């Protein structure tokens, strides 16, 4: 498959130890931002997109889109599945549907991922300003 294409994937959100350490350090900390503004992808999916690790990617769902830094997953193989740690960046694209029981659908969401080399990765304040108009 040629580079710069779009991939249809399944989005999972969840915990990582880096996110856990970052959140305890402080949600405004650099460690926290670096731990949650990432997208773990299978090496094969990175190859299909024609990008290298640490390149920016645009993850889109029916509920929104967000730029994240692509990282090669150490938990591979999981071709067609991307993993974004819980946080404000993941929230931009998760499914708010609660199916009448209170719990939004935060795992197993159909998504699309594409290279976004020219799009910036926003920091916390920029992201909040863009999404909610406050900072």
């Amino acid at each position, binding site marked *: 498959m040629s580079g710069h294409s779009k991939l249809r994937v*399944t989005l*999972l*959100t*969840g*915990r*990582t*130890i880096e996110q*856990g*350490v*970052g959140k*305890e*350090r*402080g*949600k*405004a*900390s650099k460690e926290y931002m670096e731990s*949650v503004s990432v997208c773990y992808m299978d090496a094969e999916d990175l190859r299909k997109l024609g990008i290298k690790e640490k390149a920016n990617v645009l993850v889109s769902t029916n*509920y*929104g889109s967000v730029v994240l830094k692509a990282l090669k*997953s150490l*938990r*591979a*193989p*999981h071709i067609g*599945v991307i*993993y974004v740690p*819980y*946080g*404000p960046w993941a*929230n*931009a694209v*998760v*499914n*708010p549907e*609660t*199916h*009448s*029981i*209170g*719990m*939004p*659908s*935060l*795992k*197993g969401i159909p998504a699309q991922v594409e290279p976004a080399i020219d799009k910036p990765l926003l920091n*916390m*304040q920029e992201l*909040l300003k863009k*999404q*909610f108009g*406050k*900072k």
Partner: protein
Amino acid sequence: MPVVKAVTCPVCGSVCDDIELTIENGNIVKVKNGCAMCESKFLGYNGEHRVLKPLIRKNGELVKASAREAIKKAAEILVEANYPILYGWSSTSCEATRVGIELAEEVGGVIDNTSVVCHGPSLLSIQEVGVPSCTLGQIRHRADLVIYWGSDPWSAHPRHIERYTNFSEGRFEKSEWMGYIDKIKAFIARKKIESVIRRLFLKKKSTAPSPHLEKDVCPAISKEGRKLIVVDVRKTRSAEIADYFIQVEPNKDYELLQAFRALIRDQEIDVDKIAGVSVENLEEVADAMIRCHFGALFFGLGLTMSQGKLRNIDAALSLVRDLNMRTKFVIMPMRGHFNVTGANTVSTWQTGYPYAVDFSLGYPRYNPGETSVVDVLLRRESDAALIVASDPVANFPKKAVEHLVKNPLIVIDPHMNATSQLADVVFPSAFVGIEAEGTAYRMDHVPLPLKKVVDPPRGVLPDEEILRRILSETRKIKKRKQEAS
């Protein structure tokens, strides 16, 4: 330097109570026995992200204010609101939650805790099916088969395996830690030998399977001693240390659980694969489940957040119920925050319901899907919010947050987080379990005392005290209004 022993860790639902802290000049300088998250909290809690003065939004900017001014502003917001949300509670003490419920009743709001976005479906399912469970101590001493399903304790509860399951030294079951170390040593030695042979004979890189891959082609669970099985959609870090790993396809947990139920009842399955896993492998695991003397199934958000949600938990609870006809088996949700169980417990004592409690009619009502905070926000019904020890802006879907931040927002939290940045009133608070005492409930419903090991910064109060003052001010304002009318 004074060393404080047996400190309870205020991070995850494992609530380890063997932490040792070295204190120097009123600061924690060393942490013993803690995991990475525990160290990060005890050593980094007082960093540059700490809020030290109350803040009030004026002309679009958060500016410093006196405690009295902030209390008055917060109380006014809550009294003025018709349907305020009071949310959070999982990272504070049971004592603070108790005051929060009193405040919710006083202002006629909806009080919800973070279980609504973690194990809320588990609670709903437990109410329907029941839960055969026990304490973690019993599992430590007796469990010879442990299953983590949709849960990665290595990342989210780093000492769970070491303290309560396979790597803990129980009275009747021994730790598997040395066996794991031997396995890793053997794997490294084999890789080294292969590397030498490759260099000597200039052979191409071998594709020798890792010890974990070996398990995939050799599904027999035949080892002696405690067995660890992990079921997940990815090969997590916990899966790497497991004796057996089942990689289920995303959103297919329900099928897999029901397949296990059929196998446990000796029913035949007519297909070759279920949820991406061969039935032959499932039969091996089902056999191991039946043959164990004491099994424990821990489940995480992989079940509660995926398609099926509470129905996945129904299936897991039913599987354990079925297993109890063949052997002894228990099940337990892997609770995330250190006192989310306490928030549920206190809420149940006080109102009859564990979360999503609505006081707008003057008495407690519970109907998750209607009275749960995400649904209230999605329907755009609330008109103010009080957030305690939580960060919904970082945890709720964007659409819910849009309504949350549109209305007056009060935050009580020691750190500046995403929610505080968008708030109208921010209260700094003391860290419970470090700078304030309290009670927390471990994931197995065992209450543990949280210690105060250092003093909070001057003028910074515990959550409980801030809530009491807001409650008192709220009552004063309501009384004045009644007298005026």
